[in-house]
Every structure is written in structure tokens, then in C-alpha cells.
């Protein structure tokens, strides 16, 4: 699937040079991606979201739970978009624009943490499982089968309603759900990689299991891991939004899913479109921008996917 190239003279190259080669390869990969039009658009949107998340404290006129008071000292409830509140207010008198900006932080944090966690876990399990084989492989792969058998949303709903809902728990659940795909894909890559001559060469040169696994095989599966980090960010954000929308999110943070849940509960779909559309559109734009990026990456690896 991936264009894994055996590094030149890996057994002789030092680890530093190895790393430099790997980095250079990925940098050129980025250039290839930027030549893709949709990927560039996706990347631009992502950068926009990152900026919004980082600058939220400066940009947001109000805090995530701050109530807006009018000149008459009354709470400004369900006010349509206007000069004072660009995207209007909620039924509790909170500024929608501010919630949206703060929500970008949550989305980014959830996406990145769950993606990094799951890919790290999945890559490790895939590497070990594929490299060592035998009973280790058997145990780890049956574990993967069990993880595949657990229905995510229902399971996550049960767990969060038994434990106290918190963002950390949501992230852990997403990691629990996501690692399995990475593990399987990485394992199958390792199965083919470990029979390549450069692995024999490394072994002949006296490299131990750890060195072969992490210095010689791991760099070759990294491009795939990167792909799964991107996919993981997308899935993680979607899952957090879905879980929060269903009412099982962390009530102490303001995420897009929590916003949608509150709007849905309050019947804003009937009366206050300005409260429903911003979080929904932000979520869609974020998820789709990452999809555009990963799709371009996959199209580069497999040109058949592309419609010419």
C-alpha cells in the first residue's frame, strides 16, 4: 500500500543519518501534498482553525460560559446575530461566537491527544506483533479482535454514564477505539518489511531486536503512522462531538458537540438557527479539511483513487 523504500545501506548508516534521511523524505512528502489543490485548501482551513484555537483568549469577546448582560442589566437571551453579538446568543445568554472559538481549542486538544495516543499505541502493538510473531502476535491480534467487537458509541455512552464524564475520559475512550486500525495496518506492513534484505543485513551486523525494530523497521512505517494521526484527529473530533451531542460529554468544557446538544435540547432548531449552524458548520469544515488532506495523501500513494 505505502511506498516503503528500503533505506540505502541502513546497516552502515548511523542512527542520526537514518533519522535525517527519514525527515528529508517526509519533508519532500509535504511538498508533494502542497501540489494537490484540495490538500492545500484543507491545509489552509486547518491552519485557520489552529489560529482560532491558539488566539481564542484574544479573539473571543466573552468566556466560554460567560453570560452577556445588556445595557439594561438584563441577560441577553436568544438574541439574533447583530453588532453586539456577531453570531447571536444562546438561551442562557452566552455569546455563540465566543463558544465557537473556545470550542476550537477543545476540538484541537481532543483530536491531537486522541490521535497521538492511539497511533502511538497502535504503532507499538503493530510493530511488536508483526515483528515477533508467534504467541505474542496471537495474543495482541486477539486483543485487536476484541477491540473491533466493541461498538464505540454505545460503549462510550455506558462508560461515561457510569464514571463521571470528563474530557480526559472521552479522549481515553477514543484512543481505545482508534488504536486497533493502526495496529492492524502497521502489523501487516511489518510482516512484509521484516523479510527484506536490509533487516537481514542489520541482523548480520549484530543488531538486537530493539535496534532492528525501532531503528530499521519503524522509520519505514512512519509515513503510514502519520496518515493515521491525521485520520485519528478527524475521527477523534467526530466521536467527541457525537458523544457530547448525545449528552455524554464533559459539561465543564464548551465543545462544538456540547453546543449542539444544548441547542438541540433547547429546541433551537426551530427558533435559533444562529445557535445551531455555527458549531455544526465548524465541525463539518474541520472534519472535511482533514479528510481532504488525508485523501490527497492516499491519492498520491494510490493514483487509482483519483478521478482524472
Amino acid at each position, binding site marked *: 500500500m505505502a511506498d516503503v523504500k528500503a533505506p540505502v545501506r541502513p546497516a552502515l548508516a548511523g542512527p542520526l543519518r537514518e533519522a535525517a534521511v527519514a525527515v528529508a523524505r517526509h519533508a519532500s512528502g509535504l511538498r508533494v501534498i502542497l501540489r494537490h489543490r484540495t490538500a492545500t485548501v484543507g491545509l489552509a482551513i486547518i491552519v485557520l482553525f489552529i489560529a482560532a484555537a491558539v488566539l481564542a483568549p484574544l479573539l473571543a469577546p466573552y468566556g466560554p460560559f460567560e453570560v452577556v448582560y445588556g445595557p439594561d442589566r438584563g441577560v441577553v437571551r436568544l438574541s439574533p446575530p447583530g453588532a453586539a453579538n456577531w453570531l447571536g446568543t444562546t438561551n442562557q445568554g452566552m455569546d455563540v461566537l465566543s463558544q465557537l472559538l473556545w470550542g476550537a481549542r477543545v476540538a484541537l486538544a481532543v483530536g491531537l491527544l486522541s490521535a497521538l495516543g492511539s497511533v502511538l499505541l497502535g504503532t507499538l502493538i503493530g510493530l511488536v506483533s508483526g515483528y515477533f510473531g508467534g504467541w505474542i502476535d496471537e495474543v495482541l491480534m486477539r486483543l485487536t479482535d476484541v477491540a473491533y*467487537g466493541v*461498538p464505540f458509541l*454505545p460503549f462510550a*455512552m*455506558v462508560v461515561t454514564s457510569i464514571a463521571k464524564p470528563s474530557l480526559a475520559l472521552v479522549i481515553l475512550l477514543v484512543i481505545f477505539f482508534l488504536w486497533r486500525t493502526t495496529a492492524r495496518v502497521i502489523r501487516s506492513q511489518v510482516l512484509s518489511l521484516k523479510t527484506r534484505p536490509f533487516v537481514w543485513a542489520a541482523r548480520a551486523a549484530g543488531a538486537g531486536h530493539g535496534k532492528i525494530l525501532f531503528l530499521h523497521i519503524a522509520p519505514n512505517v512512519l509515513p503510514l503512522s502519520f496518515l493515521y494521526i491525521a485520520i485519528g484527529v478527524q475521527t477523534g473530533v*467526530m466521536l467527541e462531538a*457525537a458523544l457530547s451531542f*448525545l449528552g455524554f460529554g464533559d459539561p465543564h468544557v464548551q465543545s462544538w458537540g456540547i453546543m449542539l446538544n444544548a441547542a438541540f435540547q433547547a429546541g433551537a432548531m426551530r427558533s435559533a438557527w444562529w445557535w445551531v449552524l455555527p458549531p455544526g458548520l465548524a465541525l463539518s469544515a474541520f472534519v*472535511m479539511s482533514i479528510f481532504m488532506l488525508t485523501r490527497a495523501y492516499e491519492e498520491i500513494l494510490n493514483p487509482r483513487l483519483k*478521478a482524472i
Partner: protein
Amino acid sequence: MTGFRRYVVRRLLLLAFVVWCILSIMFVLFQLLPGDPTAIFVDDNFSPEMIDRQKQLWGLNDPLWVQYLRYVGNMLTFDFGNSFFQIEPVAHIMADKVQNTCLMIVPALIVSVVLGTLIGAVAGWRRGSAFEQATVATSLFLHSVPSFFVGILALMIFAYQLRWLPSGGMVGLGGPEGLWEMIASRDYWVHLLLPGLVLVSREITGPILLLRSSMLEVKGSDFLDILRAKGLSEHRIITHATRNALLPLVTYVAVMTGLLFQGQVLLEIIFAWPGIGRELVQALNDLDYPVAQAALYVMALVTLLLNLVADLLYGVIDPRVTYD
């Protein structure tokens, strides 16, 4: 064929193992609940003897491993006990809700697969055409946009703004009751239209993209040249090619149905569709744990069984697959 038989046995053993693991995880989860089930009923008027009698009745005084074995036995025989609040055995509630969920996803799946196959096959055949480009772009868009937001949008536009369609439920108040009566009624189809279309808009993208790429593969095959040499019309050749390109779709549909069964909780909530996902959400909110437990188990089981079907069909429909 022995290789296939060995594969089937191995696959069934794996299924049993995974089901056992999931049951055990669930047992631990529901053990972790604060307090025991009596806590929900018992108020200060209950004497300690009454509480104890109730515990005795429910087997809560037995050692944990006895409770575990009984629990596994009950789950495997679909004996889910009684709901805390609805005066009905949970098994009946489950059967009812699974049927309702199927009433939403089965029609949507049929439309998605039939229509998606046609569109995907034509797109793959006409590689490079404007039709292919438009199809792929639209499919990717629909595939990546979060479907529950599409549902919310559809509801806002067609139910609340335009008032063309009902905003939720499976039938209107006082609507038809029995399964066949319902399917025959206009009321059900009117209620199905909006959630059904939202579901189709997402699920159709799978068959389209799959058929397209598998068509590209089939298109290069030698047997098509022979058909061409025989002088068959373009239309007949597409039919032959599609039949071969369909193979991967069969397994895909089985897996997709399984995922849909657990993933459509969101649409059931948005459209107030009384399916199993909505039942789980309500049971968790009401602390009706027997119902929640059963719903989680049934959803996992359906997915696992459909995955099994997918794996087994794979070998049956494509004779080129070997298991030795």
C-alpha cells in the same frame, strides 16, 4: 473444502471468544455502578429485612463468581430480566427496538446499495469523464461531512421551515401498530423519508466509491476483450463487468450494516426514531440498567454476527479465495 471448514471453525471460535470478552467487560462495567440495583428502588420506608429479601430474590447475596456465571448464561439465552421501569421483559423491548431500527436502516441500505452500485459502475466504466469527476467529488463530500449535522440541517429545513415532513417519530399519534400494517401505511413512509434520505446520502458513498475502483480493476481484464470480440454491445459488456466488480461489495455491505446498527444512534435521537440506540440513551438517562446492558450487548452482537457473515461470504462467493 477442508481448508474452508477449518477456517469456519476457527472463525466461530474467535466469535465465541470475542463475545465472552465483551460480556466480561460489561459485567465488570456494570459491577462498577455506584451502589447495587436495590439502591434505585429502596427508600427509607424499606426495612433492612425487606431489602435483604429483595437482594436474596435477585441473587445479589451470592458470591461474585456465581453471579458472573448466571449473568453469562442469561445473556447467552437472551434472558435479560425485567426493566426497572417498563413493565415488560427486556427481551421483548429489545426485539421491538431492533425491529424499529431495522425499519429505518434496511430500506435506506437497499436504496444505497442498488443506486450506489449503478452510479459507481458507470463512473468506473467512464473513467475520466465529467460524470466520474462529479460523482467522486460529491461522494467524498457526502462521505466526510458529519451525517448527524446533515440530519439536523434536514430537520431544520424540511420539517421546521418548509413544514413538508414530520419532525420525528416512526408513525404519527394513533398511527398503525403492527409491523405489516405499518409498512403498508403511508404514515410510516412519510416519517421515514427524511431520516432515510440522510442515511442514504452517507451510505451510498461506500458502494459508489467501491464499485468505481473495483470496476477500474475489472476493466483491464482479458475476459472483456473476449466479450468485445464476440461483438456484444457496450451495455452487455458493462453488465458482465459489473457482475465481477460486485464481489467486494457483498462483504462490504455486511460490514457496513453492522457499523450502521451501532452508529445510527445519532439519527435516532435527532429524528426521535424509537430504535435500539435511542432506547440505550434513554435507559442510561433513566438508570434503567437491565435495558442499557441488553441494548449494548445486542448492538455488539449484531455487529459481530454481520462481520462473521462478511468473512464467510467472502470465501463462498469468490472461488478464487483459498484457505489452505
